[in-house]
């Protein structure tokens, strides 16, 4: 075992499922790191994975994780880098098994231990919980879950850092979890490395802020950064962020030398406020972090120092993310060219809407946007755009309905406009739009005592 150093380096490798495949490889080869943290799960990802698992019980996890492990396992095993990833989705054991098979194929048997964190999946327990009076009311609408119970497709409690810490303490090198919070994947290595106590609220809050800072990958190292965006160097070669954490809860955000992007106070601030609610109480299963206490300072090139973070005791609830079947939607597009591009697209929209009405189709919502004029900034953009001179406009019209037949019929009303509507229309190469099932998100709270995280550690 290598000696414990004063700081621990945690590298972000994926900010979401579908993020840059090169990033994790570059993080483990571009310089020294102790941990590789990878966040795969967004709010709706669990329901997609649940659907895949219902078709094939061996699936239900982020499949890309396996070829990625195949590529980097020899390196991380040699360098003793540990991996925390919530790639397990709704089937962490299946995911771990696939990783183990890859490891054996790479002749890493006896050199790796895999940790599996489960216990977040509540789908099979929902009726019992409801019967015992846990209403799982929607945090936004206050409706009872019972109202949509028969349409629920996934239900997962957000677990925090502690089960991951448990796996690390038991010697796991690669830890595959279900719905563990994004921040917990970064906080856990710090708790483990520094021996932080469960009631060290300021330290846990600091680790949580570190997690929030790097959980979206390059979004804190120059990606999607508005301030000074044109001068952020070499995004083609962008370096993903690395947290260099100290035992006292201070940490620095940096990246490997020679990589592109930028780590600046302004850029890190943009990431800190991303998806922020009340900054005074950022609630996780592990603590409540107060983002109004964070101090940032530039500490050299591509290095931002973070200190001062204060925290408060965790609540006695866990957030539960529930996916339920909502209905259907489809979006169709056509492109209109100059002259009068905007006016032609508007005319096509009127014609289409009249045809939908004449067919007697009922929709919960019909939304028209004119891409190139108002799709992103709505009336704010229309007020100043040269609407008479736009070189082209994309008509983008979407419908939503509980009735699949209505949505399906809508998808057949787009193409005819090419020959029987306004002129100078193109851009239909993609074919008829496909009706899409909507699985909506239902956030709720549940007493912590109702959820029992389960940690297994197995040798490869």
């Amino acid at each position, binding site marked *: 075992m290598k000696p414990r150093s004063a700081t621990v380096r945690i590298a972000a490798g994926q900010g979401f499922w579908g993020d840059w495949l090169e990033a994790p490889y570059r993080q483990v080869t571009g310089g020294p790191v102790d941990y590789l943290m990878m966040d795969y799960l967004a709010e709706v990802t669990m329901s997609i994975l649940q659907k895949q698992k219902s078709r094939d019980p061996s699936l239900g996890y982020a499949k890309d994780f396996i070829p990625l492990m195949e590529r980097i396992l020899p390196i991380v095993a040699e360098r003793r880098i540990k991996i925390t990833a919530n790639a397990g989705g709704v089937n962490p054991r299946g995911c771990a098994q696939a990783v183990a098979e890859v490891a054996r194929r790479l002749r890493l048997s006896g050199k790796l231990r895999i940790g599996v964190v489960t216990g977040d999946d509540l789908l099979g327990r929902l009726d019992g919980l409801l019967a015992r009076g846990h209403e799982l009311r929607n945090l936004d609408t206050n409706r009872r879950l019972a109202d949509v119970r028969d349409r629920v497709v996934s239900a997962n409690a957000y677990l925090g850092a502690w089960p991951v810490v448990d796996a690390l303490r038991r010697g796991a090198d690669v830890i595959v979890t279900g719905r563990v919070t994004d921040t917990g994947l970064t906080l856990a290595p710090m708790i483990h490395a520094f021996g932080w106590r469960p009631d060290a609220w300021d330290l846990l809050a600091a680790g949580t802020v570190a997690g929030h800072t790097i959980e979206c990958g390059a979004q804190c190292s120059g990606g999607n950064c508005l301030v000074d965006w044109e001068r952020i160097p070499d995004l083609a070669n962008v370096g993903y962020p690395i947290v260099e954490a100290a035992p006292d809860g201070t940490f620095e955000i940096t990246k490997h030398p020679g990589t592109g992007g930028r780590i600046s106070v302004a850029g890190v601030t943009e990431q800190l406020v*991303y998806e922020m609610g009340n900054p005074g109480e950022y609630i996780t299963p592990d603590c409540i972090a107060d983002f*109004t206490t*964070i101090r940032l300072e530039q500490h050299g090139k591509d290095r931002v120092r973070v200190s001062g973070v204060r925290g408060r005791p965790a609540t006695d609830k866990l957030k539960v993310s529930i996916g339920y079947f909502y209905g259907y939607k489809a979006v169709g597009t056509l492109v209109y060219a100059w002259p009068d591009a905007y006016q032609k697209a508007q005319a096509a929209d009127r014609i289409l809407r009249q045809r939908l009405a004449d067919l007697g189709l009922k929709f919960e919502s019909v939304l028209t946007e004119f891409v190139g004029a108002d799709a992103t900034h709505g009336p704010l953009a229309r007020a100043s755009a040269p609407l008479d001179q736009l070189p082209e406009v994309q008509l983008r019209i979407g419908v939503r309905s509980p009735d699949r037949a209505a949505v399906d019929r809508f998808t057949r009303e787009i193409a005819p406009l090419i020959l029987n509507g306004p002129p100078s229309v193109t851009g239909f190469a993609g074919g008829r739009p496909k009706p899409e099932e909507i699985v909506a998100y239902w*956030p709720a709270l549940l007493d912590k005592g109702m959820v029992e995280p389960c940690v297994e550690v197995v040798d490869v």
Partner: protein
Amino acid sequence: MKKADRKRSVPLLELAHARSGDKGDTANVGLIALKPEYYPILVKHVTAACVARHFKGMISGPVERYELPNLHALNFLLHGALDGGGTISLKTDAQGKVFSTALLRLELELPK
């Protein structure tokens, strides 16, 4: 002197940068002063009421504002901004990613 002469119009884009995201049907916009000395201007002039007026017709719910003086930033929650949000929404910007720059279109009337 007329009152209008004592004011000048300053685009928020010249005073701040921003990033936005979503939580359900709520979009959040973090508004960050480009220089620390601009932060008091943001606090005074970019009120929740003024942001609600700016986004009139684009959001169906109220606007909340939080202050982060440590980061020279304000955080706005725009409720009912995303046509139901997430997977339900039919909008191009279903996750509220560009409400950030939409807020930066605001023009502030500042004393000369």
